[in-house]
């Protein structure tokens, strides 16, 4: 006979405003084996947990049922509560009467109360049959894979490396640094982006715990927490970084010119090039797609001119296989492709550029070598590719209001004669120091007009651009001519993210960014054990938030790895040897090769390796005799829940 305590939570009204919690508690109190049934405003609070602890002692409870929120929300909390009273955490059952009852059924309070009773009854039925399972301790190492070498990946790598963990930092481009290397200044402090980033980049290759794999891509990941097997392909650069002195002689002679992606295509580069001025590793790379001389060797100009002999055409792609314990995804973003917003004429009109183009123009302007003329009348159009159902992106990209505020100020201050307008939907200056920064831009004379620009029209002779927009504060229709239009493009998930996310089966949010395990309390975890998110891979964010999240992700990874062992759930498969006939159907069903047939004499019996079993339960479903079972999800438990529900 079980001794069950049932607790019905009000959740401060979240539940009790829809469901009659007293009725549910009274109903539960009538059930067999239920010794005590109560309702309480906040079961997860100290008071609520203490209530459970006292009752376990006083009423000698051996099972606890909590009718409250989702077990995915507070399940771990209540498991710890019963564990601290000396019970197995697996004698605690939750009835989800919030997410799956009071919230979606707020319009049907009577039916919701009936449903809450059923859900509680189902949890009681399962609890009766719960066994006192114990958590297993599993060994874990101290190796981390970080995918993506932008500021998020760099910060996470440095945190983990400094803390003594082995880091493999994989970056698909020839240099780490990501988009931040392209920026002029950072808002709201106007630090020079390259100046604050380059020391961090330089710290990476000298950290003894970080193995930097640039120009490399993750090709495959298999496994689980504590044992992720990763296959990486490192592309050849055809230049030996140890010998390359970055003298630039090769660049001078290289005949192949291509658009320079680092400069957003505003300038060209050669086929042999330094990825950016602060590149780490600081070495030239031959871009084999544009090089003339590879197969067959038609041009060897760089090779001929390279004095230290750093160029080696015989390099091949290298396959690197590593095993890691945890993984941090930091694959970042790409900017919205503004050609999708045809009404603004990007790609068609020469004087329509993106904000990233403007970053590069400002950097070159400050260095005294402007890439192009900007003219005096400049307009910024906000929310290009953000908050726009027409292009399928409903989300706000968070950073565009502030970067436009920054760019407009930098332009205005470098030449006060400039007439600068920012056309915005809403001006969102939510961060520390942002509102003050926005006011400063207004003070500097940047004009902010609330209105979504309908159309940009080019005068084919003068190449000047006319904007049509309604000022929604004054209700005036504005038609005004500008020399240059800057599109404040939003952030989209990086195109490379999907491939790696699919290998790990990480969920995506509807906006395409990767989904965190819980929006409030597990913002850098994923639902995949040992896989964490850092930076814009999870959603648009600015640099301080990205850095904070990267440090949070490393700390979450350290939490799992630091002790050298972790608690694994004992919800593995078991086999009842007396019933098992050794048919081996379970062996072929198991996705982890965790089951094998033991033969002794003429007896054949399936045996589960608990270290390998991940607890999916597919063997239990397949077993024809019922010998194979899954702990905590035994067939009789599921059947008991069905009986209670129906």
């Amino acid at each position, binding site marked *: 006979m079980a001794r069950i305590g049932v607790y019905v939570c009000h959740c401060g009204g979240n539940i009790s405003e829809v469901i009659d919690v007293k009725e549910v508690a009274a109903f539960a109190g009538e059930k067999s084996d239920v010794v005590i049934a109560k309702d309480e405003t906040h079961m997860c609070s100290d008071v609520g947990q203490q209530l459970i602890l006292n009752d376990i002692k006083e009423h000698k409870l051996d099972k606890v049922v909590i009718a409250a929120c*989702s*077990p*995915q*929300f507070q399940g771990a909390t209540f498991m710890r509560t019963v564990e601290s009273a000396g019970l197995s955490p697996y004698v605690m059952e939750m009835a*989800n009467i*919030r*997410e*799956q*009852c009071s*919230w*979606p*059924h*707020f*319009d*049907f309070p009577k*039916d*919701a109360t*009936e*449903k809450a009773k*059923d*859900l509680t009854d*189902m949890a009681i039925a399962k609890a009766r049959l719960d066994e006192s399972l114990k958590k297993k301790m599993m060994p874990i190492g101290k190796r981390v894979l970080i995918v993506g070498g932008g500021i998020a990946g760099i910060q996470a790598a440095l945190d983990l490396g400094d803390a003594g963990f082995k880091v493999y930092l994989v970056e698909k481009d020839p240099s780490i640094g990501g988009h931040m290397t392209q920026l002029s200044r950072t808002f709201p402090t106007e630090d020079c982006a390259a100046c604050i980033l380059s020391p961090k980049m330089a710290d990476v290759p000298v950290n003894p715990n970080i193995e930097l794999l640039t120009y490399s891509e993750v090709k495959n990941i298999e496994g689980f927490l504590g044992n992720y097997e990763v296959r990486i392909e490192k592309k050849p650069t055809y230049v030996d970084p140890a010998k390359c002195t970055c003298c630039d002689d090769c660049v001078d002679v290289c005949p192949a010119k291509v658009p320079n992606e680092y400069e957003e295509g505003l300038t060209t580069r050669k086929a042999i090039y330094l990825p950016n001025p602060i590149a780490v590793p600081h070495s030239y790379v031959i871009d084999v797609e544009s090089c003339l001389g590879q197969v067959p060797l038609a041009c060897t100009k760089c090779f001929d001119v390279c004095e230290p002999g750093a160029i080696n055409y015989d390099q091949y792609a290298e396959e690197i296989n590593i095993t890691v314990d945890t993984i941090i995804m930091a694959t970042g973003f790409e900017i919205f492709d503004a050609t999708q917003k045809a009404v603004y004429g990007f790609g068609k009109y020469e004087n329509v550029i993106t904000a990233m183009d403007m970053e590069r123009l400002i950097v070159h302007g400050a260095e005294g070598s402007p890439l192009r003329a900007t003219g005096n009348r400049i307009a910024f159009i906000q929310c290009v590719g953000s908050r726009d159902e027409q292009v399928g992106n409903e989300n706000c990209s968070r950073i565009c209001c502030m970067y436009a505020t920054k760019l407009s100020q930098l332009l205005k201050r470098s030449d006060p004669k400039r007439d600068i307008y920012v056309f915005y939907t809403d001006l969102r200056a939510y961060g520390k120091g942002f509102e003050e920064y926005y006011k400063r831009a207004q003070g500097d004379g940047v004009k902010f007009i609330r209105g979504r620009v309908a159309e940009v029209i080019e005068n084919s002779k003068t190449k000047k651009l006319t904007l049509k927009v309604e000022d929604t504060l004054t209700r005036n229709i504005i038609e005004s001519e500008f020399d240059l239009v800057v599109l404040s493009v939003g952030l989209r998930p990086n195109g490379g993210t999907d491939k790696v996310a*699919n290998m790990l*089966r990480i*969920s*995506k*949010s*509807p906006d395409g960014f990767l*989904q965190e395990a819980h929006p409030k309390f597990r913002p850098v975890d994923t*639902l*995949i054990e040992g896989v964490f998110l850092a930076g814009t891979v999870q959603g648009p964010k600015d640099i301080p938030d990205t850095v904070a999240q990267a440090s949070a992700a490393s700390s979450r990874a350290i939490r799992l790895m630091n002790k050298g062992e972790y608690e694994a759930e004992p*919800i593995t498969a078991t086999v009842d040897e007396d019933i098992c006939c050794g048919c081996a159907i379970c062996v072929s*069903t198991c*996705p*982890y090769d965790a089951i094998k047939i033991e033969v002794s004499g003429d007896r054949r019996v399936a045996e589960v390796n608990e270290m390998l079993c*991940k*607890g*999916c*339960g*597919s063997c*239990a*479903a*397949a077993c024809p005799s019922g010998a194979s079972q*899954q702990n905590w*999800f035994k*067939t009789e438990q*599921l*059947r008991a*829940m*069905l*009986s209670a*529900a*129906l």
Partner: protein
Amino acid sequence: MKNNSNPKIIVFCCNWCSYAGADGAGVARIKIKPYFRIIRTMCSSRIDPELVLEAFEKGAWGVVVLGCHLGDCHYKNGNYKTLRRINLLKKTLKQFGIEDERLRLDWISASEGARFAKIVNETVDAIEKLGPLEVKM
């Protein structure tokens, strides 16, 4: 058996995708008809077809089995096993004259709360029309 005037639908959800999706529907306060009861397992491949039959035997008007999208299974390929098992079961049910709408197999990601609500509401609507299950042997 309890009061049989309202539809009674059992929804089997896997822990990783569909249960989280169901929670998501609640968090977003999407209105769902209150006639379904969720049983959570770690993977949809835990759902033995016999359990589905038992649900019908015990009085369920309908059963919905929800897993992660194909290719997204937390346990490599569990949902493919579910796909094969439930499709086979659907054929068997048909031979007993049980309407196809009474058993639904579908896939929901952890972020698809709206999709969860839509699938459950569609199932409730279809099954309300059919009424309680009566098997004539």
